[in-house]
Structures are given as structure tokens and as C-alpha cells.
């Protein structure tokens, strides 16, 4: 270990507390029993689909479009996952096939 046990423990606790702080903030602002303002209720509803859309971009942020494999494995695997899902609506099938397809593409083809 490059640093002392005490310091390692302090770091873990700090990272844990900071992470928890980011997650707990809305619940501190709108605690149990306090009425949630209309505008926040509205945001709560529309934010979920928007965050999911953003998370897809987040997952693909490292895709190299102008070099390497030019994002072809990502494109194919995302398209396969989405199309399979539109067709069969089976989570495990879509995710499993998409992942295996991606692994095959990055390990064998590209």
C-alpha cells in the first residue's frame, strides 16, 4: 500500500460521504411530509426519460468516431440491441445478444 491505513480509510470515508451527499440533496430540500412544489413534481416526471437518453450518450462517450474502429462496433451493437428489443420486447434477449455481438466485434473483427 502506497499510503497509510488511516489515510486510506479517511479517503474511502470522504469518497463515500461525498457520493452520498450528491444523492441525498433532493431529499434534504424536500423532506418527508413537506409538499413537493408542482414544478418539481413536473421535473421528476420528465427528467427520467431525459436522464436515460443522456446516460446512453454517457455510455458511448468514449467511442472513437475518427480513429480506430470508427465506432462501427458500437453502432452495430446498439442497433442490434434496439431492433431486437422493438421486435421481441425481451430485456435479457436484447441485452444479451447486443453484448455478445459487441464482444465478438471488438475481440475478433476489429
Amino acid at each position, binding site marked *: 500500500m502506497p499510503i497509510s491505513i488511516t489515510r486510506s480509510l479517511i479517503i474511502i470515508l470522504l469518497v463515500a460521504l461525498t457520493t452520498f451527499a450528491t444523492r441525498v440533496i*433532493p431529499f434534504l430540500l424536500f423532506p418527508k411530509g413537506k409538499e413537493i412544489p408542482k414544478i418539481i413534481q413536473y421535473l421528476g416526471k420528465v427528467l427520467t426519460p431525459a436522464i436515460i437518453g443522456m446516460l446512453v450518450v454517457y455510455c458511448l462517450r468514449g467511442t472513437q468516431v475518427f480513429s480506430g474502429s470508427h465506432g462501427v462496433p458500437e453502432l452495430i451493437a*446498439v442497433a442490434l440491441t434496439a431492433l431486437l428489443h422493438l421486435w421481441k420486447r425481451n430485456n435479457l434477449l436484447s441485452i444479451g445478444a447486443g453484448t455478445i455481438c459487441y464482444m465478438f466485434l471488438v475481440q475478433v473483427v476489429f
Partner: protein
Amino acid sequence: MSDRKRVIKKAFPYTIPVLAGYLFIGIAFGVMFAEKGYNFLWAALMSLLVYAGSGQYLAVNFFVPGYSLVQVVLLTLMVNVRHIFYGVSLLSEFNRMGKRRFYMIFSLTDETYSLLCTTKIPDDVNQDDFLFAIAVMNQLYWVIGSVIGSLAGTFLPFNSEGIDFAMTALFVVILVEQLLVKERQIPALVGIVAGFICLQVFGGNQFVFPSMVLIILILLLGKKKLNHEEVTKTCQ
């Protein structure tokens, strides 16, 4: 079958994609942490107390001499700041959950948030127990993955390159489901477009927070139109 067992059995299938993803990104974390000289107990401790994918990847770098504790807090804040917005969708769900809500808030990762907000809860189980079971199982996968990684990560019996795509595929599937519901199409597209624009402008390491701000701005500006479309329950 006891009630608890029944809930776990019902909830488990929904968590399988997270199981696949968390095991392997957990393993990657365990390997990285072990390379710094921290054994499986440390990995387990961190995954139990912190429980954040990208947050823990980043944190591995903190365990060297010369890193200030202020830096530790600020960098962690930067990578996890998106979580500030997640609770907004789950205020009423968690607030009625009694003591368990503290665990629910603590365990609000990207994946758990997405499952909690988009899974249609079966009619024949207690809603709160079902959400709690999903949250606990997800963290279990994460802890197990990190322990496996630190114990045996370098001896994995097969080439796992690309397996973390399971997480991407999970979000793609959930996104498709969102796009199939009329009143969620526009918010979902707002998220994709805002994320994409901010990615181009701010780059891969810093685009998430600006994206969230842009998304909220657009959603607030479009409130009249979106509310008009009768945005019903997005989050159960």
C-alpha cells in the same frame, strides 16, 4: 414460500442485466485497486460504503502520496454530481418507505435509478419491498464483482473485453421502452440531443453536468407544451 423470498424471486429477473454489467465492471475495479496494493477486503469495504461505478474507478487514483483530501472531495463531487438530480424523480416513493429510504437514497446509482424509475412493478407484490429488493441485489452484484476482481481478476478464464457493453445495452433497452410511450418521447430526445451537444462542446470528462443543466432548462422552457401532453406517471 416466505413473503421475502417471493419478492426476491419476482425482482431478480429485472436485475439480471445489472448482474452481468456490475459483475464485470466490479471486477475491473477490483483489479485496478489490487494493482495499487489493496486486497479484497479493501475492495469490499469501498464497494459497500461508496457504491459508485465511475466514482470508484476515479478514486483508485487517490491512493497515492501527495493527493490532498480537498482534491479527493472535489473530484468525487465532479464525477458524481449528476446524482443530485436523480432523487427528484423518487421523492414521494422513497419518503413513504420509512427507515429503508436511507438505504434507497444511498444506493441510487445510474443503473438502480433507471430500474426503479422504469420497471413496472408486478401487482401481486408489495411495491416498497420490490424496490428495496432491486436496490439490495444490485449492490450485492457490485460487491461480489469487486471482490472477484481483486482476488482473481488477472486469472479470468476467458477474454472479457467488451463485456461492459451490457451496461450500455441496458440503457439502450430502457431508452427504447421510453420512446415507445408517447409522452416520454420528447424528454428522451431532449436528453439524447442535449447530451450529444454537450459532449461535443465540453468533451467526455466534463459534459454530464452541463448536459443536466441544459436538459432541465429545456424541460422547464417546454413545460407548457409537455404538461399539455398529459405527462402521466413516468416514475411509479
